[in-house]
């Protein structure tokens, strides 16, 4: 005890060891960050009081405060810890900042859509009427929602069998050049611009029916299917690959034919993942505007028939309400935002449900 007391008394001078360097206290980045924000906040307050700027600039405070933090942590760390540690701390700050920067638009979009969309979203007619004979306020999205459900439903009906069978081909049958070519071009196809898919559907049906002004819902389904098939193939392929080979071999050993093995063993094992993939694919194409603008066109009336006449869809509705504002422009803008809110909610629900299904039903593989 006494020895300890004595030694703690004697060691007052810092250890001079060339192999260890100084280190900033553990919580120092946090304090420096808060300090930088406070300093910039003070500067902006002074600017406000002296009436150089009107109002307190919160965004400016956060932005310049963070910049100040980067400078401060670099300088301090350089003095205490050396150049290498300083660079590490600076890069950590920058990398974290990059992540926060990406969240800003996401949060901003969510908030503005919710605030601007709610007024029209909660009007009683919004989900119960179309835009037929509506000038100014009132009206709704019933025709657009019907159209979106029909067009996207048809696109799903087309692309799921094709996509799933192609994925089965790639995992169960495909060898050699054809399989390689399909894998490669499926990947390439995911990058086809959505408007090109719309133009393709238009060119196809304009030639088939010899009608240079053709617009109908089924064409939209074809365009969306072109965009959807590669997504379905990719996700189903991944899921089918996860099925352990032992299951297939066990089935073959029992004399089960290959197609029955796939139907009764491989598909049931991976069905949760496939459903997830399909739902994500639907979520991806349900918000597509450009192809539907081209081939499905827009209308103010209900249309239940995919094969004739123009058909309104939700994304096109949003675009159309915003672009061609009539008298009482505000109600058009309100409806556009409410449509956007509906669209985002649908996409979020699809995404959430897909992830939920994946989490609940998927076989657990630890990595």
């Amino acid at each position, binding site marked *: 005890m006494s020895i300890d007391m004595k030694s703690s008394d004697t060691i007052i001078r810092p250890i001079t060891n060339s192999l260890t360097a100084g280190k900033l206290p553990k919580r120092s980045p946090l304090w420096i960050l808060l300090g930088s924000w406070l300093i910039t906040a003070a500067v902006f307050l002074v600017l406000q009081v002296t009436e150089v700027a009107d109002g307190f600039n919160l965004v400016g405070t956060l932005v310049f405060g963070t910049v100040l933090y980067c400078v401060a942590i670099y300088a301090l760390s350089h003095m205490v810890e050396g150049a290498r540690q300083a660079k590490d701390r600076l890069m950590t700050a920058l990398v974290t900042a990059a992540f926060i920067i990406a969240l800003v638009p996401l949060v901003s979009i969510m908030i503005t859509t919710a605030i601007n969309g709610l007024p029209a979203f909660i009007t009683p007619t919004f989900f119960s009427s179309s835009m037929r004979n509506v000038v100014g306020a009132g009206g709704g999205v019933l025709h657009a929602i019907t159209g979106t459900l029909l067009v996207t439903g048809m696109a799903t009906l087309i692309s799921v069998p094709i996509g799933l069978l192609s994925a089965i081909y790639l995992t169960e049958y495909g060898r050699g050049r054809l399989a390689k070519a399909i894998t490669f071009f499926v990947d390439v196809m995911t990058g086809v611009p959505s408007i090109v898919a719309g133009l393709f559907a238009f060119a196809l049906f304009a030639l088939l029916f010899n009608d240079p002004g053709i617009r109908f819902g089924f064409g939209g389904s074809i365009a969306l299917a072109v965009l959807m098939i590669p997504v379905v193939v990719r996700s189903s392929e991944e899921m089918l690959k996860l099925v352990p080979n032992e299951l297939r071999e066990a089935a073959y050993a029992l004399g089960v034919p290959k*197609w029955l093995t796939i139907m009764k063993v491989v598909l049931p094992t991976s069905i949760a993942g496939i459903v997830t993939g399909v739902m994500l694919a639907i979520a991806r194409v349900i918000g597509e505007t450009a192809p539907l603008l081209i081939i499905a066109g827009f209308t103010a009336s209900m249309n239940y028939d995919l094969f004739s006449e123009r058909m309104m869809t939700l994304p096109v509705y949003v675009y159309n309400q915003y672009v061609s504002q009539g008298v009482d422009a505000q109600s058009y803008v309100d409806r556009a935002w409410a449509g956007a809110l509906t669209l985002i909610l649908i996409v979020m629900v699809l995404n959430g449900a897909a992830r939920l299904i994946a989490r609940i039903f998927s076989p657990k593989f630890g990595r």
Partner: protein
Amino acid sequence: MTTTVAATTIKARQRPGDRVFSTASVVSGSLILAVLAAVAVFLLVESLPAFVAPDEAFSGETRNFWEYVGPLVFGTVWAAVLALLMAVPIAIGIALFISHFAPRKLAQGLGYLIDLLAAVPSVVFGLWGITVLAPMVRPFYVTLVEWFGWIPLFEGPVSGTGRTILTVAVVLAVMILPIITAICREIFLQTPLLHEEAALALGATRWEMISMAVLPFGRPGIISASMLGLGRALGETMAVAMVLSPSAEVIFQLLTSENPTTIAANIALNFPEAHGVGVNILLATGLILFVVTLVVNMIARAIINSRKAFSGAN
């Protein structure tokens, strides 16, 4: 003889079900290739009249198709490159944050958060760009022109609405962030753990480890991810069509009210009213967009695939 040996190889009995199933899967696999070919063929057939269209079909001083499409191609590439310049550094930062900086337990959730950005429909991005972003950045543009107006890129007069090519590039950058981030993240996670541990064992700081082990390993992945992002930015339609106030010219200034428009936005804005050979002209510009994005995507995928073979992570 030797042929009898081959003849006795055991072959599974081909049941009708097997035949139907394998044929169906081969057919639908090939159908994908056929669809891609059909896209090219039908667009080409429908756009043939545009290439020989007479002067009267084009408005203003443009006399033939190539003069018409030239400024559009410039605008498309210009907007996409600007978006890429902004998106790539941030995307690399996000990917590094998720793969190497964030706490392990949070990493996947943060990844979902970025993926949510990909789930926002492009028309909503357009609405947001026009009502939130454009008014917000306008004061910033005014300052930029005041202070840096002597740089040709930032030459005035500044746009009164903020709906300039730079705003469009910002929106595009936000839209292509998720795809670049997702691929960079995958690649960074594939870095051999031994390389990372070796760097750390030599006393490297975390950033030194990343710049010595992770980034060199991931460079091809970053390049191809950027190219995929470029492909997306080239073809993005609605956000550009809604945010930009267009004039089909070759203009490098970023902040004026005269901006080069893109192929996709031009199609979306003019297609509903187009008729006669005008439709063919728009389809022909679409064909050019298709070819450009196809080439960009094929190069990107080729790079990714060649990497896959060497990484040993699969």
